[in-house]
Protein backbone atom coordinates (compact mmCIF):
# COMPACT_ATOMS: atom_id res chain seq x y z
CA UNK A 1 0.00 0.00 0.00
CA UNK A 2 1.38 3.42 -0.91
CA UNK A 3 1.44 6.23 1.63
CA UNK A 4 -1.26 7.95 -0.43
CA UNK A 5 -3.51 4.93 -0.11
CA UNK A 6 -2.58 4.61 3.55
CA UNK A 7 -3.53 8.25 4.13
CA UNK A 8 -6.99 7.72 2.70
CA UNK A 9 -7.45 4.51 4.69
CA UNK A 10 -6.10 5.86 7.99
CA UNK A 11 -8.26 8.99 7.85
CA UNK A 12 -11.33 6.99 6.84
CA UNK A 13 -10.84 4.98 10.03
CA UNK A 14 -11.04 8.22 11.99
CA UNK A 15 -14.15 9.50 10.22
CA UNK A 16 -12.32 11.84 7.85
CA UNK A 17 -13.37 11.06 4.30
CA UNK A 18 -11.03 11.86 1.42
CA UNK A 19 -12.40 11.12 -2.03
CA UNK A 20 -10.81 11.40 -5.43
CA UNK A 21 -12.70 12.93 -8.32
CA UNK A 22 -12.90 16.59 -7.47
CA UNK A 23 -13.09 19.31 -10.10
CA UNK A 24 -9.33 19.89 -9.81
CA UNK A 25 -6.38 17.71 -8.90
CA UNK A 26 -6.63 16.54 -5.35
CA UNK A 27 -8.91 14.96 -2.82
CA UNK A 28 -12.27 16.17 -1.61
CA UNK A 29 -12.53 16.30 2.18
CA UNK A 30 -16.23 15.79 2.79
CA UNK A 31 -16.09 15.02 6.51
CA UNK A 32 -13.64 15.55 9.33
CA UNK A 33 -13.64 13.26 12.36
CA UNK A 34 -17.23 12.36 11.57
CA UNK A 35 -18.49 15.91 11.04
CA UNK A 36 -19.75 16.69 7.51
CA UNK A 37 -18.03 19.52 5.62
CA UNK A 38 -20.22 21.35 3.11
CA UNK A 39 -18.97 22.44 0.70
CA UNK A 40 -16.05 20.01 0.94
CA UNK A 41 -12.49 21.19 1.34
CA UNK A 42 -9.93 20.25 -1.29
CA UNK A 43 -6.65 18.65 -0.32
CA UNK A 44 -4.56 19.43 -3.39
CA UNK A 45 -2.30 16.45 -3.12
CA UNK A 46 -1.36 13.64 -5.46
CA UNK A 47 0.42 10.42 -4.66
CA UNK A 48 3.72 11.62 -6.21
CA UNK A 49 3.48 14.94 -4.31
CA UNK A 50 2.93 13.15 -1.01
CA UNK A 51 5.83 10.79 -1.67
CA UNK A 52 8.09 13.74 -2.51
CA UNK A 53 7.02 15.63 0.60
CA UNK A 54 7.62 12.66 2.87
CA UNK A 55 11.03 12.11 1.36
CA UNK A 56 11.99 15.76 1.81
CA UNK A 57 10.82 15.91 5.42
CA UNK A 58 12.11 12.50 6.46
CA UNK A 59 15.29 13.69 8.16
CA UNK A 60 13.46 16.24 10.34
CA UNK A 61 10.75 13.75 11.21
CA UNK A 62 13.07 11.02 12.42
CA UNK A 63 13.60 12.85 15.70
CA UNK A 64 9.86 12.82 16.41
CA UNK A 65 9.26 9.13 15.67
CA UNK A 66 12.68 7.50 15.94
CA UNK A 67 11.22 4.02 16.29
CA UNK A 68 10.29 3.81 12.59
CA UNK A 69 12.07 4.57 9.33
CA UNK A 70 12.34 8.29 8.53
CA UNK A 71 9.76 8.28 5.71
CA UNK A 72 7.19 6.58 7.92
CA UNK A 73 8.04 9.14 10.59
CA UNK A 74 7.36 11.88 8.06
CA UNK A 75 4.01 10.30 7.25
CA UNK A 76 3.06 10.26 10.93
CA UNK A 77 4.00 13.90 11.27
CA UNK A 78 2.01 14.78 8.14
CA UNK A 79 -1.10 13.41 9.85
CA UNK A 80 -0.54 15.82 12.76
CA UNK A 81 -0.03 18.76 10.41
CA UNK A 82 -3.08 18.03 8.30
CA UNK A 83 -5.32 17.79 11.35
CA UNK A 84 -4.05 21.01 12.92
CA UNK A 85 -4.38 22.95 9.68
CA UNK A 86 -7.98 21.84 9.20
CA UNK A 87 -8.79 22.65 12.84
CA UNK A 88 -7.06 26.02 13.10
CA UNK A 89 -7.21 27.53 9.60
CA UNK A 90 -9.55 25.78 7.19
CA UNK A 91 -13.26 26.26 6.59
CA UNK A 92 -15.74 24.66 4.21
CA UNK A 93 -14.56 25.22 0.67
CA UNK A 94 -10.92 25.83 1.61
CA UNK A 95 -8.12 24.46 -0.53
CA UNK A 96 -5.16 22.92 1.30
CA UNK A 97 -1.87 22.76 -0.56
CA UNK A 98 1.75 21.81 0.09
CA UNK A 99 4.03 24.84 -0.24
CA UNK A 100 7.70 24.98 0.72
CA UNK A 101 7.47 21.88 2.84
CA UNK A 102 4.38 22.95 4.78
CA UNK A 103 0.62 22.96 4.39
CA UNK A 104 -1.12 26.18 3.38
CA UNK A 105 -4.84 26.92 3.46
CA UNK A 106 -6.81 29.29 1.25
CA UNK A 107 -9.11 30.87 2.06
CA UNK A 108 -8.41 30.82 5.76
CA UNK A 109 -11.14 30.86 8.36
CA UNK A 110 -11.58 34.30 9.95
CA UNK A 111 -10.18 34.69 13.44
CA UNK A 112 -12.51 33.85 16.29
CA UNK A 113 -14.61 36.88 17.31
CA UNK A 114 -13.29 38.65 20.37
CA UNK A 115 -15.44 38.66 23.49
CA UNK A 116 -17.06 41.98 24.38
CA UNK A 117 -14.56 43.17 26.97
CA UNK A 118 -14.45 46.31 29.09
CA UNK A 119 -11.61 48.32 27.52
CA UNK A 120 -10.54 49.42 31.00
CA UNK A 121 -10.79 45.96 32.48
CA UNK A 122 -7.93 43.62 33.26
CA UNK A 123 -8.22 39.98 32.33
CA UNK A 124 -6.36 36.78 33.05
CA UNK A 125 -6.39 33.23 31.70
CA UNK A 126 -7.36 30.78 34.45
CA UNK A 127 -7.35 27.02 34.59
CA UNK A 128 -10.68 26.75 36.40
CA UNK A 129 -14.01 28.45 35.66
CA UNK A 130 -14.66 31.25 38.18
CA UNK A 131 -18.14 29.88 38.82
CA UNK A 132 -16.76 26.62 40.21
CA UNK A 133 -15.15 23.39 39.21
CA UNK A 134 -15.10 22.51 35.53
CA UNK A 135 -16.99 19.45 34.32
CA UNK A 136 -15.43 16.09 35.21
CA UNK A 137 -12.77 14.88 32.81
CA UNK A 138 -13.96 12.64 30.04
Amino acid at each position, binding site marked *: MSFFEQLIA*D*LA*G*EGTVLAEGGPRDGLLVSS*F*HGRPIEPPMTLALTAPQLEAHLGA*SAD*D*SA*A*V*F*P*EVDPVTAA*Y*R*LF*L*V*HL*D*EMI*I*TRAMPGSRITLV*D*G*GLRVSPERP*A*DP*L*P*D*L*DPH*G*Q*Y*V*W*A*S*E*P*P*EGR*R*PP*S*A
Partner: protein
Amino acid sequence: LEPTVGAMQVWGACGSSDPAYKIVRAFSRYRTSGTGTYLAGGTSNLRCGTTTGYGYRHIYTNHRSQWEQKGALTAQNWRDVADFGIEWSLRDPDSTKWRSSNQSWAFQRTIYLVNKSTGQGVGQTEVCTVVGLSTQNVITSYPGACS
Protein backbone atom coordinates in the same frame (compact mmCIF):
# COMPACT_ATOMS: atom_id res chain seq x y z
CA LEU B 1 -3.82 22.04 41.70
CA GLU B 2 -3.59 25.78 41.46
CA PRO B 3 -6.94 27.24 40.37
CA THR B 4 -5.48 30.08 38.34
CA VAL B 5 -2.43 31.01 36.41
CA GLY B 6 0.81 30.63 38.30
CA ALA B 7 4.15 32.18 37.62
CA MET B 8 4.97 31.93 33.93
CA GLN B 9 8.02 29.90 33.13
CA VAL B 10 10.72 31.47 31.03
CA TRP B 11 11.29 29.58 27.80
CA GLY B 12 14.80 28.86 26.70
CA ALA B 13 15.87 30.64 23.56
CA CYS B 14 15.97 28.96 20.15
CA GLY B 15 18.55 30.84 18.12
CA SER B 16 19.15 30.04 14.50
CA SER B 17 22.21 28.00 15.40
CA ASP B 18 20.58 26.10 18.25
CA PRO B 19 20.01 22.42 17.54
CA ALA B 20 16.53 20.97 17.13
CA TYR B 21 16.94 18.83 20.23
CA LYS B 22 17.57 21.77 22.57
CA ILE B 23 14.97 21.87 25.33
CA VAL B 24 12.91 25.06 25.56
CA ARG B 25 10.69 23.98 28.45
CA ALA B 26 9.92 20.76 30.31
CA PHE B 27 6.23 20.19 31.13
CA SER B 28 4.76 17.77 33.64
CA ARG B 29 2.36 15.35 31.98
CA TYR B 30 -0.58 13.42 33.42
CA ARG B 31 -0.81 9.68 32.81
CA THR B 32 -3.39 8.55 30.30
CA SER B 33 -4.60 5.39 28.64
CA GLY B 34 -6.56 4.49 25.56
CA THR B 35 -7.36 1.57 23.34
CA GLY B 36 -4.75 -0.89 24.47
CA THR B 37 -2.23 1.87 25.07
CA TYR B 38 -0.92 3.52 28.18
CA LEU B 39 1.21 6.61 28.66
CA ALA B 40 2.70 6.99 32.08
CA GLY B 41 2.84 10.34 33.77
CA GLY B 42 6.13 12.11 33.40
CA THR B 43 7.73 14.93 31.49
CA SER B 44 7.10 16.15 27.97
CA ASN B 45 9.77 18.40 26.56
CA LEU B 46 9.17 21.27 24.20
CA ARG B 47 12.30 21.30 22.07
CA CYS B 48 13.43 23.84 19.50
CA GLY B 49 12.36 21.44 16.76
CA THR B 50 11.95 22.54 13.17
CA THR B 51 9.78 25.03 11.32
CA THR B 52 8.04 22.43 9.19
CA GLY B 53 8.12 19.65 11.74
CA TYR B 54 7.65 19.97 15.46
CA GLY B 55 8.40 21.83 18.68
CA TYR B 56 8.93 25.52 19.34
CA ARG B 57 9.88 26.47 15.81
CA HIS B 58 6.82 24.73 14.39
CA ILE B 59 4.51 26.42 16.90
CA TYR B 60 6.19 29.79 16.32
CA THR B 61 5.72 29.55 12.56
CA ASN B 62 2.28 28.01 12.41
CA HIS B 63 0.42 28.98 15.57
CA ARG B 64 2.03 32.13 16.98
CA SER B 65 -0.71 34.34 15.50
CA GLN B 66 -3.40 32.21 17.11
CA TRP B 67 -1.70 32.39 20.49
CA GLU B 68 -1.20 36.14 20.00
CA GLN B 69 -4.96 36.58 19.65
CA LYS B 70 -5.41 34.96 23.05
CA GLY B 71 -2.54 36.94 24.54
CA ALA B 72 -4.01 40.23 23.32
CA LEU B 73 -6.98 39.67 25.62
CA THR B 74 -4.75 39.59 28.69
CA ALA B 75 -1.91 41.85 27.52
CA GLN B 76 0.44 38.89 27.49
CA ASN B 77 3.15 37.71 25.15
CA TRP B 78 2.09 34.77 22.98
CA ARG B 79 4.65 32.55 24.68
CA ASP B 80 3.13 33.19 28.11
CA VAL B 81 -0.33 32.12 27.00
CA ALA B 82 1.05 29.16 25.06
CA ASP B 83 3.05 28.13 28.13
CA PHE B 84 -0.08 28.30 30.28
CA GLY B 85 -2.17 26.36 27.76
CA ILE B 86 0.42 23.65 27.21
CA GLU B 87 1.08 23.32 30.91
CA TRP B 88 -2.56 22.76 31.83
CA SER B 89 -3.44 20.62 28.85
CA LEU B 90 -0.65 18.21 29.77
CA ARG B 91 -0.84 18.45 33.55
CA ASP B 92 -4.61 18.06 33.93
CA PRO B 93 -6.38 17.42 30.61
CA ASP B 94 -10.15 17.46 30.20
CA SER B 95 -9.77 14.68 27.65
CA THR B 96 -7.08 12.74 25.83
CA LYS B 97 -7.22 11.00 22.47
CA TRP B 98 -5.00 8.21 21.25
CA ARG B 99 -4.27 8.18 17.53
CA SER B 100 -3.01 4.79 16.45
CA SER B 101 -2.34 5.89 12.87
CA ASN B 102 0.56 8.04 14.00
CA GLN B 103 1.24 6.80 17.51
CA SER B 104 0.49 10.09 19.21
CA TRP B 105 -1.57 11.41 22.09
CA ALA B 106 -3.63 14.59 21.97
CA PHE B 107 -4.30 16.35 25.27
CA GLN B 108 -7.20 18.80 25.39
CA ARG B 109 -8.04 21.30 28.09
CA THR B 110 -10.34 24.31 28.44
CA ILE B 111 -8.89 27.50 29.91
CA TYR B 112 -11.01 30.43 31.05
CA LEU B 113 -10.82 34.17 30.50
CA VAL B 114 -11.64 35.96 33.74
CA ASN B 115 -12.13 39.64 34.63
CA LYS B 116 -9.64 40.25 37.43
CA SER B 117 -11.75 42.99 39.00
CA THR B 118 -15.14 41.29 39.02
CA GLY B 119 -14.04 37.66 39.02
CA GLN B 120 -16.52 36.95 36.25
CA GLY B 121 -15.79 34.56 33.44
CA VAL B 122 -16.01 36.29 30.06
CA GLY B 123 -14.75 33.62 27.68
CA GLN B 124 -12.90 30.38 27.25
CA THR B 125 -10.87 28.45 24.73
CA GLU B 126 -9.81 24.89 24.15
CA VAL B 127 -6.12 24.05 23.99
CA CYS B 128 -4.75 21.03 22.15
CA THR B 129 -1.25 19.68 22.70
CA VAL B 130 0.02 16.69 20.72
CA VAL B 131 2.72 14.41 22.11
CA GLY B 132 4.53 11.57 20.38
CA LEU B 133 4.25 8.20 22.13
CA SER B 134 7.86 7.13 21.95
CA THR B 135 9.72 10.39 22.63
CA GLN B 136 6.92 12.02 24.66
CA ASN B 137 8.05 15.34 23.22
CA VAL B 138 5.61 18.11 22.35
CA ILE B 139 4.97 18.03 18.61
CA THR B 140 2.54 20.94 18.44
CA SER B 141 0.10 22.98 20.51
CA TYR B 142 -2.57 25.44 19.48
CA PRO B 143 -5.70 27.10 20.84
CA GLY B 144 -8.51 24.90 19.57
CA ALA B 145 -10.05 21.50 19.98
CA CYS B 146 -7.99 18.43 19.14
CA SER B 147 -10.49 17.08 16.62
